[in-house]
């Protein structure tokens, strides 16, 4: 009980000022009702200064009831106090008020267990190691065990006066407890005098999946823990079918439940302190439900490879919204104007936002800009940063953003329009035109960035790519590591960073639209390009390797396809085709 009090005073919720307290914990030890004179205690409680008929009080009790009938809740007048009790039944448990806690096993506090892998095979299917079980249960179990030799039933060892808690026997064969549990897939947790039993904790600890047979038992912390993931609950009447039920579980499921059982043990059961903290957390979550820990935080074993897509709903954004073209420019008005004029012809374009990244030179006067039938907005930035391209400006009102460089004049309206339609079908991906791929160099143990003529792609360049505005938000506020800073400092690789970001949160590859095009200046001579190109590729490879370090993994995903219009290159007349100007170099 001291440990409970210690845990409370160590917890972030503790205060020594009763005036500011939300919750009071009386310092009477009632963990076991057997040690308590119930009537006297009820009186004692009412003498507490802040008692107020128990309102806002929390009482810890692991073993309620006493001989002969073992009530399932503490038989003390606790008024309006909350009870953190072990062994509630569904009739005594006040849902959303009491907290069901496990029964801690102090005998095994210092027990040492051989560490075991979750995937190791276990000799027994099911063991029962509880002592003092009722003969009716035993009869049924022996009957079941008669036809299943991997079902081990043990009881306390008969020789010697003092029975040793760490010994269990089946006939004359002696086993060590709880080590034997580590050798079984499932462990029986039968109802005994109390509904709650230490066998549950012991099973969780040893990664032995508990088979709980106790009708009406409110499982520990069941308000937040999903026991279907870690335990099998069998109705007492069906005890005879236990082996049949257990055998129907797949190996995969058994591994999962085993991991889950151990996860529960390690996080919520392993000590009095953990139990107390979990209880306080549950109460805290009730008082402040809007900041409560989520189901996943309670139950999901953290897996760095698992993906929780923030756009989990398969929405196909209505085409009426259109897209906003965001053009990042520094000092190239001629080609910028050309891009703007071209863009304005795209049917689904809703607005053009020009990010003027040049602080030295203001944008040309409005009269100089091309006259277009769509809204045009110019945003003067404070600082010449590449990240500005992905800032979620409130001027961008559509979900879809087309990030486009100020020199991409070679894309046709059909191609852009089709690109937008493809994005609508895959709004959680990056959908773009020029593609790149990363390769793993086995010798260098490094990733290499490749551009040309590959059969697969893992990135599309954001010089011309559609993405959801949500990713601009993530890019600006939620990117791991210091990638954003790094990109701004080095003035490079913002597009690679975006590819990493999206693939990381979705687990999906990008989508390349329509065939390859010649993208950069066709008139440049080849020899000049070559050297700067190699340098460029080295830098880009560096970026990839940097980002892999920041993410601690390689989130990019390669795919071998691109999206074309349904009738592209099909042998039908052009009039039938919706997008004809696609794919010319």
């Amino acid at each position, binding site marked *: 009980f001291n440990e409970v009090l210690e845990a409370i005073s160590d917890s972030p919720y503790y205060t020594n000022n009763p005036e500011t307290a939300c919750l009071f914990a009386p310092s009477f030890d009632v963990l*076991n009702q057997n040690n308590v004179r119930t009537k006297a205690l009820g009186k004692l409680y009412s003498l507490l200064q802040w008692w107020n008929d128990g309102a806002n009080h929390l009482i810890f009790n*692991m*073993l309620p009831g006493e*001989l*002969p*009938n073992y009530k399932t809740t503490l038989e003390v007048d606790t008024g309006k106090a909350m009870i953190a009790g072990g062994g509630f039944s569904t009739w005594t448990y006040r*849902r959303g008020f009491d907290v069901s806690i496990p*029964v801690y096993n*102090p005998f095994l506090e210092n027990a040492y267990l051989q560490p075991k892998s979750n995937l190791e095979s276990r000799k027994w299917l099911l063991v029962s190691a509880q002592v*003092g*079980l009722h003969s*009716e*249960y035993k009869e049924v179990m022996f009957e079941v065990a008669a036809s299943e030799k991997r079902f081990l039933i043990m009881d306390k060892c008969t020789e010697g006066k003092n029975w040793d*808690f760490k010994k269990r026997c089946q006939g004359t064969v002696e086993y060590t407890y709880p080590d034997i549990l580590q050798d079984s897939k499932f462990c029986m947790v039968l109802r*005994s005098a*109390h509904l709650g039993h*230490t066998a549950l904790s012991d099973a969780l600890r040893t990664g032995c999946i508990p088979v709980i047979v106790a009708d009406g038992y409110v499982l520990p912390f069941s308000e937040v823990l999903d026991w*279907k993931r870690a335990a099998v609950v069998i109705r*007492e009447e069906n005890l005879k079918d236990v082996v049949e039920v257990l055998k129907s579980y*797949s190996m*995969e499921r058994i591994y999962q439940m085993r991991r889950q059982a151990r996860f529960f043990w390690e996080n919520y059961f392993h000590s009095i302190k953990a139990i107390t903290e979990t209880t306080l957390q549950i109460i805290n979550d009730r008082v402040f*439900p*809007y900041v*409560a820990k989520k*189901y996943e935080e309670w139950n999901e074993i953290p*897996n760095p490879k*698992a993906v*929780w*897509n*923030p756009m*989990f*709903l*398969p*929405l196909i954004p*209505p085409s009426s919204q259109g897209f906003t073209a965001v053009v990042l420019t520094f000092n190239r008005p001629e080609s910028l104007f050309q891009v703007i004029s071209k863009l304005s012809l795209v049917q689904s374009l809703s607005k053009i936002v020009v990010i003027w990244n040049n602080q030295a030179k203001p944008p040309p006067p409005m009269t100089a800009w091309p006259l277009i039938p769509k809204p045009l907005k110019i945003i003067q930035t404070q600082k010449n940063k590449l990240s500005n391209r992905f800032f979620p400006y409130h001027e961008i009102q559509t979900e879809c953003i087309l990030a486009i460089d100020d020199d991409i004049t070679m894309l046709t309206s059909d191609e852009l329009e*089709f690109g937008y*339609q493809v994005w609508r*079908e895959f709004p959680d991906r990056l959908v773009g035109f020029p593609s790149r791929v990363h390769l793993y160099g086995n010798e260098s143990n490094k990733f290499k960035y490749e551009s040309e*003529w*590959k059969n697969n*792609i893992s990135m599309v360049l954001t010089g011309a790519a559609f993405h959801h*505005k*949500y990713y*601009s938000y993530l890019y600006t506020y939620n990117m791991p590591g210091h990638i954003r800073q790094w990109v701004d400092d080095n003035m490079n690789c913002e597009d690679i960073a975006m590819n990493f970001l999206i693939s990381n949160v*979705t*687990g999906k*590859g990008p989508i390349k639209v329509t065939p*390859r095009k010649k993208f950069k200046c066709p008139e440049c001579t080849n020899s000049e390009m070559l050297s700067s190109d190699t340098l460029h590729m080295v830098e880009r490879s560096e970026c990839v390797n940097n980002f892999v370090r920041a993410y601690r993994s390689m989130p990019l*995903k390669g795919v071998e*396809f*691109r*999206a*074309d*219009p*349904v*009738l592209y290159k099909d042998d*039908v007349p052009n009039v*039938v085709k*919706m997008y004809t100007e696609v*794919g010319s170099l």
Partner: protein
Amino acid sequence: MQAKKRYLFVVILAVLLFIVYFGSKSDRKHGEVTLSLQKREFPTYMESEAVDLSSPRRRRESVTSDFKSGKCRMDTCFDFSRCVRGFKVYVYPVLERVSESYSKIISTIQESKYYTTNPDEACIFILSIDTLDRDILSVNYAKNIMPKIAHLGALWNNGRNHIVFNLFSGTWPDYSEVLDFDTGEAIMARASISESRFRPNFDISLPLVGSTLPPKGGERGYMYTSINNIPPLRHYLLGFKGKRYLTGVGSETRNSLYHMHNGDDIVLLTTCRHGKFWQKKAKELNDTRCDIDNREFDRYDYKKLLYNATFCLVPRGRRLGSFRFLEALQAGCIPVLLSNGWELPFGEVIDWKKAAVWADERLLFQVPSIVHGLSQPEIFAMRQQTQFLWEAYFSSMDKIINTVLEIVKDRVKSYFSRNSVHWNNFPGALSLLPEYSDVLHTYPSFYRQFAYKSDNQFTAVVYATSPVLLSSAPLFRLIRTVAKSTFVQKIVVIWNCDTPPPPSYQWPADLGIPILVKTKILRSVSARFYPYEEIETDAVFNLDEDSLLTTDELNFAFKVWKEFPERIVGYPARNHFWDEAKNAWSYTSKWLNEYSMVLTSGAIYNRYYNFLYFNTLRPAAYHIVERLQNCEDILMNFIVSDVTKLPPIKVTHRKVSKETMLPGKAVTDPNYYQTRFKQRQGCVASLTEIFGYMPLVRSRSRMDPVLWKDPVSNLRKKYRQLEVI
């Protein structure tokens, strides 16, 4: 009365236990007693194993007899033995007029795959007496309900294994939750139920629904046709529009809403105008706000407010539940609940924390700061969750009722039941049959979430209907082509032909993979989708014997499928269109810029869909295919799109006409193809009716290899067979 009963029970229990105690003491060793003396030696709080003295069987019996009606649990009020032979639902013969809503409930159950007309094999019983509205002032109030129930006879069995539906209970002025008839041990599926009256894991809390709720399909979530953007804030922060009761049960909360209304970002509108004498009542109560409230109330349109508010207040009405709840859910307006003690709809399985905000009626003025405290990504996620929940469980009567049935079924078959992840993640529990697998990551929609890497292999299922005469027969040619793929694990031939298959020595040999010929099959076009145990890979490649595909085409399709494991990936595509003349959806095979189906004569998809095809919640759809022996591929497309809400994926293939006419397929009747085509058009219409909506979704894109038809050397290309036409 209650107290007396309780007292009696305690006495009986005590006597019983005494008997048991002394009875067991005599024939037992006194081991337990010495033990209880020794336990004092243990230094900790815990004594050693306490001794169980009462017989579990007798305890169960006494529990079962004591915990009845108000204290019912599945263990005490439900006969599990009725469900051993399966989960079947029986509906009593309908003898009298029932309300529109109740007849929707009955017809949903009658169309369900769990429906049975034989009460002897039923696990669950549904009344044909309309119990939905027990407000005596209501037009739908069914009179004389007690004698009717008494009339049900032995099957009623004091309500055991019955589900009784109820939306309204009690009436003015106290709106009591106590029903005006004895429901005995029946599971109550009720709206507006309070936590204190709710029997956990026994009763089911329903949402409050209006009679306008359609039987099937239902309105789409508003976000599907609007915008899902960041910042996820709409014009108003918080909105509400509804009645105000001035006085009586549940009136305090709504009466104080006006304090928060600021006409700017918080718009909370109430009106006193309801009932005939509202003005008189307002005067009596000296309520001077009515006029001001009514004026504000009329300034705003309810629907507009709903669609333009980020959060919607759902304060309790006379009863705990309110229509506002589902309306807000549909609108993607995150509900802010002000209804202390309300047991939320389907709260046993739905994690409402992900889609709604709980506020406390007593702390009304905290609401603005609570909603301000949520981050943009949180709101973004919650709003999507409202839409998911709306479409998965609430948008139509059949979803609500199927959800009720699945919740009860999960309790009955608890070893193979869904956990919270099934229920609270897209596509939702009604699309995730727990009999398929006991691990979540085997469902295609969860691959990424659980970092599951699907098998790098597929099983080819070849559907054969014609006798094989030559070793160059199309079937054998196809098998050789398939076997060349590096990804094929096994070929399963579905032999649906009157002549027996050729002897094993004639089949292509040395392929390096097993070929399995299934002759004992379902004689139906559906046989190609049968979930054979031998299909061990995640991917199934369904093929016709005369498919003229190349190995490259197969390989490429498989690679594309790996990126879209929840969809059907195939070659020839079809579309659906709205036929104005027939006023129904129809089917076309024209080459169009869009498609919504791919034919399964060459398609790869997850094997889960085979399972779903044969265990669908809509048996009527399956019966259409069986009757026509046609449209099986259309149904498959319907099933998959119904789960994914997405179109299939079409991949490149060479357009070649089938050069050989197979002997078995040679059809003499010139009208044959036309009839079949007409049937298929009809199928689209009738399947839409059965599904209650048009699940197919169109796509405009086709997936081609990255370098397909690019002006580079073929040597650089991976899928060269695709380049030649």
